[in-house]
């Protein structure tokens, strides 16, 4: 399968990346080169193979569902581009 400009535009939207119209065609070519190279995986029969879910043999640890950290709003806000009191500021979402 080969990506066209419309698909690249849709992927860019999914990835929240602004892509200028004139970049769509060259990007489609770059991505198609990579995806074309990846197609070789189809040579491998994987019908009876389970997908890997954990790279090492281990059971994920469990713990009580309780607060173990927090109450440090100043640290959490310290790197934000824009804040107002104990809040992050973003462009208006609701009219």
């Amino acid at each position, binding site marked *: 399968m080969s990506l066209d400009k419309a698909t690249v535009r849709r*992927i860019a939207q999914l*990835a929240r990346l602004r892509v200028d119209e004139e970049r769509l065609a060259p990007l489609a070519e770059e991505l198609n*080169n990579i*995806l074309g190279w990846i197609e070789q995986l189809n040579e491998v029969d994987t019908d009876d193979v389970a*997908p890997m879910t954990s790279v*090492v043999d281990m059971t994920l640890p469990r713990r009580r569902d309780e607060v173990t950290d927090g109450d440090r709003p100043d640290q959490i806000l310290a*790197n934000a581009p824009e804040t107002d009191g104990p809040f992050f500021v*973003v*462009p208006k979402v609701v009219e």
Partner: protein
Amino acid sequence: MTELTDLTIGEARDRLAQGELSAVELTEAHIEAVEEARALNIFITETPEHARAAAAASDARRGRGEAGAMEGIPVAIKDLFCTTDVLTTAGSHILDGFHPPYESTVTANLWRAGAVMLGKANLDEFAMGSSNETSYHGPAINPWRRAGDNRSLVPGGSSGGSASAVAARVTLGATGTDTGGSIRQPAAFAGIVGMKPTYGRCSRWGVVAFASSLDQPGPLTRTVRDSAIMFGAMAGHDPKDSTSADRPVPDFEAAIGKSVRGLKIGVPKEYRLDGMPDDIEDLWQSGIAMMRDAGAEIVDISLPHTKYALPAYYIVAPAEASSNLSRYDGVRYGLRVPGEDLIDMYERTRAEGFGAEVQRRVMIGAYVLSAGYYDAYYLKAQKIRTLIAEEFRRVFADIDLILTPTAPSAAFALGEKSDDPIAMYLNDVFTVPASLAGLPAISVPAGLSTDGLPLGLHLIAPAFDEETMFTAAAVLEDSAGFDSVPLQWWRTG
């Protein structure tokens, strides 16, 4: 006198212990080396004042009899590890001005062991690259040059600044992270030792995430012993990383000096590539001979799915990256580019903040995870990953280690491969299979290419058997007797 910057970690530790040297003296010598080597663009942030204070504190601890395993040892930290109140960039524009209010577990472990931070080392943006050329801060430069050729070479990547720092005698050791080869390939390109632990040995907490099921911190050092010392100080269970291995950290240094007599070393035929340079094949053969002469038994093995590891990796890693990097949205930290509305602000921030390779991978990742393509790509790749891991498990039932070259070439010149993503990806063809299977592996400098550049040999071990790996790596190191060093051209300008 021997320059203090030429010491190994082991030698420096012993001289510090005997009182022949102070951490302050050792650190001052290295701060000078950092300043002299600025042409190599090793550091994104130098932290000399931090280092001086840490060295003085280290000497004070030693005076109280509280010396740790890395007491007074100056190191570089790959700028992917969060360090409290010290700029952490991940080599990206999008983390502009980010000063973490917390410390990664691995660096906290190193400071507890007494290590001294000289600065934050350059890297490929978000660790995505094999040449350090995707860094927003410009590439780190390899201290090595080809014989009779003054062109700048890449240090490999993504831990390129870390590799250059150690090879150029600017720091005694450095942290790196390895997702598909990002410690081992730069170590090979720079003539030093680079080690990727078993997945789970070193905590990923506080390390900027690239591909979480593959990322693993590890050390870059000049000797195998130094690798064992530094790794021991970095490793350990961490409840803050749910994939961290809850098992004791052995004394890795004790594995060095043991014999490889009777060990079975597998040599996989699938790692012999068409068009591989003769000097890589020759190096591999000499490594096989070294192990045999030291008493190991060489066993021909087959890992039939090896060729599919790299394309599978280029589905899994971008998929995880696209998810991990969704947090960079211009709201909570780093760069913000204003837009007409919230979505426009996200899109402009990410388009300006991420470089070309990161955008390419984020888009590949978003595509292979998107509705209708998930099964064809992502699920397929995770199945191939199962096959590769099973294949390793099968051969390790009969052998102890696997020996291969680390990379299919020596270091290349800046710009030589940066126009062709797939040519760049092929740098990791020998390192990616072990990454997909979560296995420990190490690169040891073992010879020079025909044009005078270092080449590395690569040992892969079963999960959590770093000790046997260190034993064999030390034997390879001794047998190879690699003692070449780069000319310090940057010191004379």
